[in-house]
């Protein structure tokens, strides 16, 4: 039998044991964003016609925290194991690169989805939100969490210190999420920045995710899903290559 289910279980248990920090805290942070931005900007901005700014904001904020938490899960687990040295307990058993990849990815996606569900559970009774296309919501939820879970594995493998991981998070993941149209529709941007936004893979996940709620988006959802899936696939291929070579894990 494969060791994959156990590694997945262990990775889920790891964040679940500290769920105040890994689930409740990000849900609360997202609610604070929502309160502050909704208060400051409601009435002044209309991102999508016929959709209140608070409503517009919720899917974007939810996706933002799903992305960040998926990334945080795999990256922090790997860097902690590397720094404390207990990564040997994963490297010594007969686990293949693919099994290690799928377990870390799976746990990261579970955390991202749990946080997303938490955000919706906490906001829906404040601001009712229609979900006309739940399958799009699910598809983009999975693609986004998968993409960032995979990026988290790469960051965790590459980083040798917490400082390097923080740099990855603050100088790559944060700007990409903030500039992905969480707080605005990219149609409100000047043409140059619109074009730049289209190079950001996070934009497609957020835009497509929002389509699931409002039936409207900046890009056709199928095209967004294709871009997001392609980014996810490319990152997965890279991660598997790194794991197979034992890059920074097996010396």
């Amino acid at each position, binding site marked *: 039998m494969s060791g994959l289910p156990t590694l997945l279980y262990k990775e889920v248990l790891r964040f679940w044991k500290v769920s105040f920090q890994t689930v409740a805290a990000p849900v609360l942070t997202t609610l604070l964003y929502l309160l502050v931005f909704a208060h400051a900007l409601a009435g002044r901005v209309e991102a999508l016609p016929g959709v209140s700014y608070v409503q517009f904001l919720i899917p974007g904020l939810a996706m933002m925290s799903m992305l960040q938490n998926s990334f945080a899960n795999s990256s922090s687990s790997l860097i902690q*194991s590397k720094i404390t040295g*207990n990564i*040997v307990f994963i*490297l010594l058993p007969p686990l293949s690169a693919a099994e290690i990849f799928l377990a870390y990815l799976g746990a990261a996606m579970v955390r991202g989805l749990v946080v997303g569900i938490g955000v919706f559970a906490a906001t829906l009774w404040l601001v009712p939100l229609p979900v006309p296309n739940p399958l799009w919501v699910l598809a983009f939820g999975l693609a986004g969490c998968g993409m960032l879970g995979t990026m988290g594995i790469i960051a965790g493998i590459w980083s040798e210190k917490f400082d390097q991981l923080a740099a990855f998070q603050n100088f790559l993941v944060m700007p990409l999420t903030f500039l992905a149209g969480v707080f605005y529709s990219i149609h409100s941007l000047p043409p140059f920045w619109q074009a730049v936004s289209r190079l950001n893979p996070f934009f497609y996940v957020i835009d497509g995710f929002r389509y699931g709620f409002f039936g409207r988006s900046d890009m056709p959802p199928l095209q967004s899903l294709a871009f997001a899936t392609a980014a996810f696939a490319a990152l997965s291929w890279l991660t598997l290559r790194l794991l197979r070579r034992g890059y920074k894990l*097996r010396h």
Partner: protein
Amino acid sequence: MLAVEVRGVEKRFGPVRALAGVSLEVPRGEFFGLLGPNGAGKTTLISALGGLVIPDAGCLAVMGHDVARDFRAARRAVGIVPQEIVFDPFFTVRETLEIQSGYFGLRANGAWIDELIERLGLVAKAHANMRSLSGGMKRRVMVAQALVHRPPVIVLDEPTAGVDVELRQALWSFVRGLNESGSTILLTTHYLEEAQQLCSRIAMMKDGRIVALDSTARLLADFSQRVLRVKLEGSELPASLAETATRDAAGAWRIPIADVAHVEEALRALRAAGVTVASLEVAEPELEEVFVKIMHREEVEPA
């Protein structure tokens, strides 16, 4: 069948040549010692056996399974207790062992886990978080983790470094029991008396090479001998004995003796010289002496 097979393994870490062509065979059921000063390459060799280090050249196999090509079978066949104390602070002792067991695909392994907990004296701590355990207790858990999949080959990398006497004795009787029931043991240690008592065969490493490899008895016979250890009070050793004798760090004379007749002779010489003997004992050959001689020989005439 060989338990461990190492062929021409080389490994470089930047400018450092950690392994400079190591070949080694350990038959099944042996209690094998791997000795050498710090930085000799012992841990690198063990890590290569477990797939933690990927060699630049050469190959390694455990129970006939190549560690690279047939990594699953090779890793199932070996249990490695790493040198550094490491643990996952999120889990209890039992959870740690159940999880480790699961990594090997073993789900219904509770009975063996209970036995390991029992035999390693961890019953009282089974549900304690790993963080709350003392260093010695964490070491025991690491031994249990390495044995959770019942590997036929067990590798212990300096398991008694910084461990108290009680645990050390408990650990050795446990490991000896495993060896008697057929497991192959590969041990590295800096405690040479332990190696001398436990290991039937010994390899000594220096600068990434094996510089001596033989049965413990053979090494002792070749490089060490029985001596009469005499401590004198303020007087000199008679000239007839001083020729062959050496002086140890404690200031005692070590007079090589081949047999009982030789002892008689030495005692007679001491009496005749009228010296005052403070203490006197017959010291058996020691691995420490073998070790020092071999390491020194390597410095004088590097192979």
